[in-house]
């Protein structure tokens, strides 16, 4: 217990808690419609793109967040277009794009700074990544994601459940999908440096999957996914502090444990 309290004596851990809890909440909420619409791959693709963007930003000396946010937002629109276009096979196209972005990121880094611990921390996350301005920006954006999600909750439900019906009754489906990809892009960029490019997509997918095992109404699934995600993040961060393991991986393992528990509960 004393050990737990001493943890909060470090300002960087407090910052990590604040940003991480908000980002995992956002990711879990957005994850529900994304998983249901079979867009899970988009989250994964976005994280690879944001790795590439981050690597380029560092190599060129741009501020990482200000550079990667627009790039990832653009990529999100593009990925959504690919996913909607049934003529090309969407999953293959997304895989190609994410691998290319990753490759660009690696080449740029190795040509400039070389494969340093920086790259390692982009890939697998680092708790030290957050400075004060990042925290302010992250909290603001995360709050915006939350407000927009709550505000458009019913529309997102309708569009997720049945696009053609919504379109026929005059809901502007394209607008909501754009909103969804925009919010996802922001969440991925914000969460990526703590969770790591390789692991951030699990924050989007796991809570939704776990909640869907247990609950049967959309609202309950959304609530459960959000709660589960925040709880798992806090547990993961604590575990990573106590055992000196990387944050991202610890959180993912907590999510995995929660998923397995949910599977067992859902069986009954």
């Amino acid at each position, binding site marked *: 217990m004393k050990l737990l309290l001493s943890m909060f004596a470090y300002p960087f851990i407090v910052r990590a808690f604040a940003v991480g809890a908000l980002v995992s909440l956002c990711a879990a909420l957005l994850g529900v419609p994304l998983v*249901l*619409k*079979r867009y899970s791959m988009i989250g994964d693709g976005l994280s690879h793109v944001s790795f590439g963007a981050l690597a380029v930003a560092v190599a060129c000396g741009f501020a990482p967040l200000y550079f990667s946010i627009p790039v990832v937002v653009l990529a999100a629109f593009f990925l959504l277009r690919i996913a909607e276009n049934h003529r090309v096979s969407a999953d293959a196209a997304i895989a190609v794009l994410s691998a290319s972005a990753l490759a660009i990121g690696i080449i740029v880094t190795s040509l400039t700074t070389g494969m340093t611990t920086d790259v390692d921390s982009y890939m697998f996350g680092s708790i030290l990544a957050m400075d004060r301005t990042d925290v302010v920006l992250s909290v603001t954006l995360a709050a915006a994601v939350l407000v927009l999600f*709550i*505000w458009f*909750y*019913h*529309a997102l*439900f*309708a569009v997720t*459940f*049945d696009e*053609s*019906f*919504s*379109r*026929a*009754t*005059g*809901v*502007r489906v394209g607008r909501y999908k754009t909103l969804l990809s925009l919010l996802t892009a922001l969440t991925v960029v914000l969460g990526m440096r703590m969770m790591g490019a390789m692991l951030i997509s699990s924050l989007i997918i796991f809570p939704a999957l776990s*909640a*869907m095992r247990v*609950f*049967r*109404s*959309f*609202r*309950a*699934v959304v609530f459960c996914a959000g709660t589960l995600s925040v709880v798992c993040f806090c547990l993961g961060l604590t575990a990573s502090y106590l055992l000196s393991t990387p944050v991202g991986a610890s959180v993912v393992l907590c999510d995995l444990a929660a998923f397995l528990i949910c599977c067992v509960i859902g069986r009954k």
Partner: protein
Amino acid sequence: MENRILLSCRDASLGYENEPLLEHLSFSVAPGDYVCVVGENGSGKSTLLKSLLGLLRPLAGEIDCPAQRAMELGYLPQQTAAQRDFPATVEEVVLSGFLNARTHRFFYTAAQRSAALMHMGKLGVLELRRRCYRELSGGQQQRVLLCRALCAAKELLILDEPVTGLDPAAAQDLYKTLRYLNEQEHLAILMVTHDMPAALREAKNILHVGKGSWFYGTVAEYLASPVGKRFGGERR
């Protein structure tokens, strides 16, 4: 009042990228009509439906749907794979029918909630309202989706092959419900279907679409027409 038109097609050519599937199509739907759209696979039924719903622009001519502009159009689409394992209660699905471009609020109004309950009662799914959509039978799911369409529709209901995947009893049930809505509630119905006997039995008018040609008229006119004799006759 009765001269009002809910949906009209004037000399419209429909299709993709300058390859019209249907040309010079003209017909209209008025309150209380019951139209079945029939035709072989690939004859342009889904293209027609998309155009009527405003999802696809006609290549030429004009399609006007005052019912859609007035937000009085309900639509029962074909089910998608994603819906089959969707975690949502029946009530959540039905209420989502009230959503359209005009209204936006976080809570549904009391009037909307009671209207939803009324529709659910009418279609016999009221006791299912707390159940999960994915656990219902095909027939029940179709009823739930019909309820949602009713929440959106006051005047015109468009259905896309509603009996696909239903067993015969559930299909008959659905037809009975539609007839009730049409006769008692004066709801205009436009239904795309492969079920020819049912179309001839239930509908007042038939729109037959075939490659490049089309026919629109009452059931009796259709059966007397060359295309109707060929297509409707052999199926009987």
